[in-house]
């Protein structure tokens, strides 16, 4: 069972209060009508789905009802950090490979 720190509530809460919402940092095309089918399909459906470090959105559905981001390992399920919408992760696959933790 995961213990998740909501960056808005500022507390660790039980996994049951949250919903996972998939890959983070996907931005909606600014000019949807100008997209090719390829670009629109990529935006809508295609995902990174990595084995290892993943940046993903979570929703504190039974709490403050805010979306936030998380850096988590998809194999060990270890949570490295949670951060607010609009912020960038401080832990990445590259930074971990570079020996920082």
């Amino acid at each position, binding site marked *: 069972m995961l213990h998740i720190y909501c960056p808005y509530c500022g507390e660790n809460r039980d996994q049951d209060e949250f919903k996972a919402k*998939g890959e983070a940092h996907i931005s909606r095309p600014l000019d949807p009508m100008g997209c090719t089918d390829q670009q629109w399909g990529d935006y809508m459906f295609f*995902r990174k789905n990595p084995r290892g470090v993943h940046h993903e959105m979570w929703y504190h559905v039974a709490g403050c009802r805010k979306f936030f981001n998380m850096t988590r390992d998809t194999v060990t399920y270890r949570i490295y950090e949670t951060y607010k919408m609009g912020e960038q992760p401080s832990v990445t696959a590259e930074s971990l490979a570079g020996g920082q933790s």
Partner: protein
Amino acid sequence: MQRFSGFGLAKHALSHHENWQRMWRNPTPKKEYDVIIVGGGGHGLATAYYLAKEHGITNVAVIEKGWLGGGNTARNTTIVRSNYLWDEAAHLYEHSMKLWEGLSQDLNYNVMFSSRGVYHLCHTLHDLREGERLVHANLLNGIPNEMLDKDQVAREIPALNCGKNARYPVMGATVQRRGGVARHDAVAWGFARGADALGVDLIQQTEVIGFRQSNGVIEGVETTRGFIAAPVVGCVTAGNSGVMAQQAGFRLPLESHPLQALVSEPIKPVLDCVVMSNHVHGYVSQSDKGDLVIGAGIDGYNGYGQRGSYNTIEHTLSAIVEMFPVFSRVRMNRQWGGIVDTCPDACPIISATPVKGLFFNCGWGTGGFKATPGSGNVFAATLAKREAHPLAKPFSMDRFYSGALIDEHGAAGVAH
């Protein structure tokens, strides 16, 4: 291949069953094959079997990183049915259902396919309308499916709580009587034995770690035992498909999630059919050994650890007890997870890829066991002719660009 029969059983009893032939060889990989299948689950093994049997292509290797059928094939709740809503999906799953019906004879291997009936409960007016719609869509496609009212359901499934005091009272159900369960391991082993007998090399404990290509054309696979060449490669790696696509240089519209199942201690026969409920989200059947086989929902997060969350188990069991209060004191024996490759429209991807000669068969997500023979059959034809089998055509990954999705979230409602 040594054929199995009742007579053989008696004969081998005389030598204490010590002289049975091994079911398949354990060959060293050749340098080159006509076709390489990556992934020795049910779908990969079925593909190899039908390639050899129906297309005469026998210089084939199946490369499996663990052991045959140790992935989702070994981890699923074995529900088999073909009552999908949309024409494309219904035809594909029905193709598979027809193969199930003669599979034990075809393979000379008892896959224990048991048409014990699959019930989908309806708990709301909306459920009833969706059920009616599904039944009629199926009938138009020539796939028998029936709608039952509450009294019929109560008569046919005595252990089910059909009382009006249930939190979500049962109002009716659809039933596909040809549906049922099969023995998962036997399906993998039967296909493996059949493929091996036709000359296919089954190579276990060998992981594919890369695809060698030149100018966008496949040349073979890099493995933990070196390079193996082939002009055609079919990748059938279920939950690991996203990682495989990344190795080949493209992305798939897939996300991998843990999906759990659990079995109880064995009890006396109490449930002779498969019961599923989209509304409270639970599904259960009873195995021949007597244990209740219970499937959970997926964990919402992406995950590759073959285990899931305890709260998912808790939700599942509360749904089961809601449906079957008599199970409330049954103890659970074992619980495990598999990694399922879920697709946005809850349908598989059987497709050519940006790499010429490399094909993928994946995205079966939570419900591909039932498709094992059909998936292998159409994928074999696709690999043999290097163009999509007519039943596979609508399942190309191009649909995520054209918009021609096949939205089976309704019929696939619960994870099965």
